[in-house]
């Protein structure tokens, strides 16, 4: 698994719960180090073990933790760069949803060895969508759900999201768009780089 993924989990725990909790997590996960390097590749089995350890240390269900990771990735000021990259996907939430099909390709353009799970958006009506994503790590759909929830806020859209389960390495999220301009949303200035 790419170091960026593990590093994201590390930053989530450290930024949200403090470095003590992170050190404890690495102990529970039986890692021999405490720092993931964003630009190195790690064994695949490390990531699910790590997620179990986070869930154990925070005493919260793993699905919930994974959704929080997704929300963190879009809304925490420390990872503002990522929110900006996602906002390049489209000028409205619906356009953003449609850009998700390209997400793994976009990620690969930036970091050539970063392989994100495949995502497919299906639109059933102008306000009804489902997102089907590959989940090499069980619960990946929950991470996507956290990302979508936070991105809807970012665009100022009101959307209802539901994880409708999964199987055979795929997970599905159902998206109901209630209102596209529900709130102000956050601005996206093309020229402003994240610091």
């Amino acid at each position, binding site marked *: 698994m790419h170091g960026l993924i593990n590093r994201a989990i590390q930053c989530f725990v450290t930024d949200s719960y403090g470095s003590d909790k992170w050190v404890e997590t690495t102990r529970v996960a039986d890692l021999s180090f405490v720092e993931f390097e964003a*630009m*190195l590749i790690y064994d695949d089995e490390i990531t699910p073990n790590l997620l179990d350890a986070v869930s154990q240390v925070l005493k919260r269900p793993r699905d919930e933790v994974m959704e929080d990771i997704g929300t963190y990735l879009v809304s925490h000021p420390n990872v503002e760069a990522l929110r900006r990259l996602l906002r*390049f996907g489209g*000028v409205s939430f619906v356009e953003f949803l449609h850009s998700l099909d390209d997400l793994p390709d976009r990620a690969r353009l*930036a970091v050539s060895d970063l392989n994100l799970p495949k995502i497919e958006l299906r639109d059933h009506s102008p306000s009804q969508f489902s997102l089907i994503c590959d989940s090499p790590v069980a619960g990946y759909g929950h991470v996507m759900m956290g990302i979508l929830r936070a991105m809807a806020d970012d665009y100022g859209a009101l959307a209802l999201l539901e994880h409708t389960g999964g199987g055979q390495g795929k997970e599905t999220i159902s998206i109901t768009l209630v209102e596209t301009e529900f709130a102000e949303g956050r601005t996206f200035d*093309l*020229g402003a780089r994240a610091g």
Partner: protein
Amino acid sequence: MMTEALDVLCPMHVVLSHTGHVIHAGPTVQKLRPDVPLVGRRFLEIFDLKRPRAITSIDGLRATAGTKLHLQLRDAPHTEIKGVLVAGPISGQCIVNLSFGISVVDAVTDYALTSADFAATDLTIEMLYLVEAKSAAMDASRKLNLRLQGAMIAAEEQAFTDTLTGLKNRRAMDHVLARHQQWGTRFGLMQVDLDWFKAVNDTLGHAAGDHVLQTVARVMVDETRDTDTVCRVGGDEFVIILPYAKGWDAMESIGARIIARLSQPIPFQGEVCRISASIGTAIFEPDGDETIAQVMDNADVALYASKNRGRAQQTIYTEDLRMDAKNLTPPAGRSTVDSA
């Protein structure tokens, strides 16, 4: 009708009259100068044509049709812009389509452009995405490189350092000697051997021995200059490299000070450790015939002579020391430097 289509397909176009005045400006190109309407102004007054050069009239401009134009805004911000001219549908008119080219990254900031300012088919937004994504990735790589560099320096430092005393080790000594040889430095080489150290170890234990070695290391560093290198090359054997050696006198006084200080009792946990030091010194002449290995051996011979004269002595190497067979073999309990 025509201009409406162009506003969508290429929002950075201008339509010029037969006199070279702007008669229509696409919505994005107007954003470059939001306070001044472009319509009604001469194109070549707004833009400086950098290439092809020396074109000052609309006729000259019209003759460039189909080729790439390098333009620059005449007033600040002097954004560089690329363009191409084609004849318009009405005779005498022409259409110039513009693009930011590589200056787009600054342009989006300078003119507060948004996705809506670019045609849906324009790859500018993708390019901006890439610029940002690559910078973020590069930043992460740079951080990794810095950390690896730090780890490498730390590892090298460790590998060159004797962990007990913090002095340079034998590897570091070889490295320093090779460097001085390369530079052609004249340097003094001092072999220092502790006297009665084994007795301290045997009677007071290893902790006392370690404490003595650390004290000795501190004294030798104190008594030498920053440019000198103090190495621990064996249990109680040290080598000091003194570059730019002025003469015997300077080295002799350093040696004398080291012996004097090491001859003072070293307290350790209520006990007192008594040691001293024997020193043999030789000089490496960059222009001389002797190799570094030979100079090391000379210093050894001088050291054995010191040991043979009783302890707490120092000897400057001279050839006649080799006349005494006793000086040619190490005293009991001392390894030769080469095999230590």
